[in-house]
């Protein structure tokens, strides 16, 4: 026995020794601290400190993680259909994905943004942009569901979106791709003449959260890439980066990188309100859809809108100014005080930081070096507060810890660079694995960051995880910023490509979680309140089945009299009234997704049986010990059969 132990120890020591040598030899795991595990360990049954909301990128969804554990809780369907829940497949939710181009089952979701009260995330709603077919969605954080999607007309590549002002007065959105506005059939080479961008300001109803486009500003045809709104002293302004001030329409990698400086567009939205009041806006025809999910009827509706108010800078002097910014800037981030406007000049060798107060002074002194389409260009030296030297290669985005430091992601050199506001000196840097895009500190773009962690959102993982064929996961990395030096704590994979993210202390959301939909308030036209109301009705070749689901049966569970060629709607109401008892519903051969029905909710699965026979249906979500008994049959007869509808 003792001898065996000795050998085990010996072998272990050798393995350990090799391990150490190996770690020393390569670039290392990056995990600096021996107590990293302790810092991210959330004991079973215990809660994380923060909710993190990450964009699903080209999955079109939002994923919800816990920090510091990196555990995935939920993927919330937003712009893409989700067969797991029926979102985008059911009659109730399909209108959410309606656009002026018809139903679109997908988009590219980039930037989640929490609603704010007095400049601080308040946990009411989460906004996120659809980049490809321009849209902004609003998620309700008491249900973690998408409740509204607003299409943005006169836009393409809705990238600089959806960033909120201090009290959600506006959600802003800008066009990464300029296009003819209004759309027309012109030669692409007529870009400079015909292509324009827009900066959209979406009003948010302070009670209901409902969105409406207040106005759009027509701007020169650059690529308006990202945005952030002002806060504190700069409240009332919004800032948009632009590149391609060259207005190239082909081979942008070369042709849009010629100018030494592009611009940050600074928009005075309080002035915009004044110009609108003076009647300077033009209402122009524009076709776009506004989709809302009603929590009481459990039905989405899609309404067509027909016009939008446009402001032209030529008519509105003082509405907008250009701040020269080197060199194809990407992110634009405003520090918690609102004074500093940081640009991620992705091809620049420095991070330029503009001063809001200097900007105001420069505007007052008319320190202009020219104009574009009547928009004054301010003098760089007159607005610049400082430059961060040696910030890493390819600086993109900056977040703030609320303690006087800024953290900038550097894509090309794969690192986060920590620097001091005011002195602009780099004080620390940490490698990321690999090719970081956005980074996120909880509340890090608000007036009061919770500056404990920064999360790196990486585009490439290469060798970091077990390989999974040609497509590898993308990842997030949790970094402790509570001390002087940044410390890597944890890697975890993400859903789709994580672009931006937001996080909020868990305690702000836990207490407001909705647990059930109360049956008393179920206003779905096909909903039922009790088993007594279950029934089957035929109207021509349409069959409505008003069905209940409860542990551990459907009622009715035997249905006859359906015929080939019928359109059969299963309206299933989950009669449970307790938390965490969803029921699933699926029918053999139905060419759609299942339903996943939360307690008290009604959902509809539409089935068009094509062949005679007897078709089972069943509960797909393991609900109880007798879940396997939760099933039923639907009999389908010939088209001209005389069998009447019957059920029990």
């Amino acid at each position, binding site marked *: 026995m003792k001898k065996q132990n000795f050998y085990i120890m010996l072998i272990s020591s050798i393995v350990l020794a090799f391990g150490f040598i190996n770690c020393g030899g390569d670039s290392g795991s990056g995990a600096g601290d021996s107590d990293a595990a302790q810092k991210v360990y959330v004991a079973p049954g215990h809660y994380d400190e923060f909710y993190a909301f990450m964009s699903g990128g080209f999955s079109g969804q939002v994923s919800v993680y816990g920090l510091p554990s990196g555990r995935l809780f939920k993927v919330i369907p937003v712009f893409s259909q989700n067969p797991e829940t029926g979102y985008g497949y059911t009659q109730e939710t399909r209108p959410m994905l309606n656009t002026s181009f018809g139903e679109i089952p997908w988009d590219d979701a980039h930037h989640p943004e929490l609603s704010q009260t007095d400049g601080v995330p308040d946990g009411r709603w989460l906004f996120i942009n659809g980049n490809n077919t321009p849209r902004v969605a609003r998620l309700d954080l008491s249900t973690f569901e998408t409740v509204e999607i607003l299409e943005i007309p006169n836009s393409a590549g809705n990238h600089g979106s959806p960033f909120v002002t201090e009290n959600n007065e506006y959600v802003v959105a800008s066009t990464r791709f300029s296009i003819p506005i209004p759309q027309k059939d012109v030669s692409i080479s007529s870009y400079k003449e015909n292509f324009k961008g827009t900066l959209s300001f979406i009003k948010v109803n302070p009670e209901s959260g409902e969105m409406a486009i207040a106005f759009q500003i027509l701007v020169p045809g650059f690529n308006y890439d990202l945005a952030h709104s002002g806060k504190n002293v700069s409240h009332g302004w919004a800032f948009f980066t632009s590149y391609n001030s060259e207005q190239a329409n082909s081979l942008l990698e070369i042709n849009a990188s010629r100018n030494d400086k592009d611009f940050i567009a600074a928009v005075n939205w309080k002035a915009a309100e004044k110009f609108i009041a003076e009647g300077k806006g033009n209402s122009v025809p524009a076709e776009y859809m506004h989709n809302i999910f009603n929590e009481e009827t459990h039905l989405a509706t899609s309404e067509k809108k027909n016009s939008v108010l446009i402001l032209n800078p030529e008519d509105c002097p003082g509405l907008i100014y250009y701040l020269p910014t080197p060199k194809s800037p990407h992110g634009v981030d405003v520090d918690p005080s609102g004074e500093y406007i940081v640009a991620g000049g992705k091809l620049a060798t420095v991070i330029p930081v503009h001063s809001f107060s200097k900007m105001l002074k420069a505007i007052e002194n008319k320190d202009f070096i020219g104009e574009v389409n009547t928009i004054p260009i301010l003098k760089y030296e007159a607005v610049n507060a400082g430059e961060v030297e040696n910030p890493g290669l390819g600086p993109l985005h900056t977040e703030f810890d609320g303690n006087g430091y800024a953290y900038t992601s550097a894509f090309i050199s794969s690192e986060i660079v920590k620097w001091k506001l005011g002195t602009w000196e780099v004080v620390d840097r940490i490698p990321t694995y690999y090719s970081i895009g956005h980074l996120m500190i909880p509340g890090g773009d608000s007036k009061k960051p919770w500056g404990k962690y920064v999360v790196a959102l990486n585009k490439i993982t290469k060798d970091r995880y077990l390989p999974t064929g040609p497509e590898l996961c993308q990842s997030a990395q949790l970094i402790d910023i509570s001390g002087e030096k940044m410390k890597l704590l944890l890697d975890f994979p993400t859903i789709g490509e994580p672009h931006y993210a937001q996080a909020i202390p868990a305690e702000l959301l836990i207490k407001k979680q909705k647990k*059930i939909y109360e*049956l008393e308030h179920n206003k779905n036209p096909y909903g039922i309140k009790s088993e007594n109301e279950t029934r089957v009705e035929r109207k021509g070749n349409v069959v409505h089945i008003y069905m209940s689901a*409860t*542990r551990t049966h459907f*009622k009715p569970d035997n249905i006859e009299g359906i015929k080939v060629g019928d359109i059969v709607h299963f309206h299933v109401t989950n009669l449970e*009234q307790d938390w965490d008892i969803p029921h699933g519903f699926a029918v053999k051969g139905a060419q759609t997704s299942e339903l996943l029905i939360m307690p008290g909710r009604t959902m509809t699965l539409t089935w068009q049986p094509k062949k005679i026979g007897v078709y089972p249906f069943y509960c797909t979500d393991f609900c109880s010990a007798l879940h396997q008994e939760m099933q039923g049959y639907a009999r389908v007869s010939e088209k001209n059969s005389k069998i009447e509808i019957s059920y029990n």
Partner: protein
Amino acid sequence: MKKLVITIPIFLIIFWACGGGEEKSSDNGNDAFKQKVADKFGLTLFELDNGIGPIKEKMTMPDQIDLIKAKSGEEIFTIKCSQCHKLDERYTGPALGDVTSVRSHEYIMNMILNPEEMTKKHPEAKKMLATYANQMTFQNVTQDDALNILEYLRSVNK
């Protein structure tokens, strides 16, 4: 081996306690024995007879049934309970036509208002869970709703 030795007595205690609970629950005479049973389950004597939950003392209810309350209770019962409980047939859960003869009023109230804890801690409710294999859930009713349901159940107990 050691574990097994410890496990056997625990099993014995539980079985004995369960059996005892059933036998004696309607017998008011043997308080000392009931106290023993209650102790085994970590319950008070009141809880053994009347369940665990928001009802912590005996309620005073007139013998006369309040028909208005019973009517309201029937409506709530139809919406929130009838999918699992019928009056005179075993369904997802037990038939409730004579439940007011079998259980105390307070027990019924606590079962309606606090079913999860009941099926975890109370020997009788535990047994029901084992028999019906479905966790009874709280159906989002108020204490007044539960009183009305109780009144309805009293009215149907012939």
